[in-house]
């Protein structure tokens, strides 16, 4: 079953076409990684998928709720860690307090933050903040979890802890769409990869297919990454 189906999505900003006729599907339990150079439109695609931007054309169809993990976490600084996670389930979903608290504490444990529930976001490292924001999104029981470059704002040594969390979620069959710069990670964790460039999907398929592709742009992109390192 497709949890997300986007067809013929178009989006322009000030006359510049950022997305040109993009179509994609996300199946239940699937991990989709979207890669591509800066300015390729991958973040705009994610913003359209999560309803933060309205496409100029095309259709989006969802099954169930979705959550989003931001590049800059966007935690609520005036809420404690626990309240960041429980406030929306309590105030928006109006769920029962005990159940919400139990679930939130279980999520914190899963994120290795069980001793941080009373801390405030500013007291946490970037990696810890990002794990709280993943827990916050998960507490809403989303069908799909979107990630917008979840490690880009982190120091390299903190990147690994986030990637591990995402990998664990993938092992639990969480449906995820991840916009990322981490090529090795995309290769390891994704079932399906989309390579975007200049607003179109240049290449897509399994990691083997995409990384083994003969597509000139894809090769150029991977080659450039290799020389950057």
């Amino acid at each position, binding site marked *: 079953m497709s949890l997300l189906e986007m067809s013929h999505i178009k989006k322009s900003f000030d006359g510049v076409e950022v997305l040109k006729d993009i179509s994609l599907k996300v199946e239940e339990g699937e991990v989709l990684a979207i890669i591509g150079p800066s300015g390729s439109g991958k973040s705009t695609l994610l913003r359209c998928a*999560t*309803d*933060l931007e309205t496409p100029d054309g095309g259709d989006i169809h969802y099954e169930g709720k979705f*959550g*989003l993990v*931001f590049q*800059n976490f*966007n*935690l*609520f*600084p*005036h809420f404690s860690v626990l309240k960041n996670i429980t*406030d*929306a389930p309590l*105030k*928006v*979903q109006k769920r029962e307090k005990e159940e919400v608290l139990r679930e939130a504490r279980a999520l914190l444990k899963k994120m290795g933050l069980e001793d941080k529930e009373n801390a*405030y*976001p*500013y007291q946490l490292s970037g990696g810890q903040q990002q794990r709280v924001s993943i827990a*916050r*999104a998960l507490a*809403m029981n989303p069908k799909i979890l979107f990630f917008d470059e979840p490690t880009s704002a982190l120091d390299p040594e903190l990147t690994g802890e986030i990637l591990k969390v995402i990998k664990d979620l993938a092992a639990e069959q969480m449906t995820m769409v991840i916009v990322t710069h981490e090529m090795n990670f995309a290769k390891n964790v994704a079932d399906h990869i989309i390579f975007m460039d200049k607003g179109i999907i240049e290449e897509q398929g399994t990691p083997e297919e995409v990384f083994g592709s003969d597509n000139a742009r894809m090769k150029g992109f991977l080659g450039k990454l290799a020389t950057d390192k």
Partner: protein
Amino acid sequence: MNISIAAMLGQLSGGMIGTIGIFFATLLFSLPLGLLVAFGRMSKIKIIQWIAKIYISIMRGTPLMLQLMVVYFGPYYIFGIQISASYRLGAVLIAFAINYAAYFAEIYRGGIESMPTGQYEAARLLGYNKGQTFFRIIFPQVIKRIMPSVTNEVITLVKDTSLAFSIAYAEMFTTAKQIASSQTSIIPLVSAGIFYYLFNLLVAVTMELLEKKLDYYK
């Protein structure tokens, strides 16, 4: 007839109550009204935005003393309505509330506009409605951001209450001036000065405590 210093201070204490009353009543009305004006100023509806803009511009662009007189004498000059002495306090409160609301509106607006869009986006993704987003997520953070500017305004307010003398409302300054001229003594004015200073000291300390209380997050 000369009266004792104790009697002077006794008379002054009546004015003191007037000043304290104006101070708290002004805050009580102007803080919520200012938020409403700020909403108007940021409204997507152009006409509302302009009304708020013009309102703020007039309130900040003309002397408060003149506004007091317009509010107090206006009903008589414009409509020929006989004004009673009991309207004095009403006029003082209306003039102060609408004047301070304009200043607070701009402070609120600055605070609200300084909030990063990420906070709105995170709230939206979590399903908060507009009211919840504003009052649970945005406004509490705005309060922390605007505390220093609000403190400034509140300190100015303490001193501005003395402008009520312009329509002869018997607050601290009016009373002090009257006693000073009837007794040809500087003591009432010095006492009034000490009173304003101590009042403001208290305000500053209280605001600092409030700011500290909001220091639990960054």
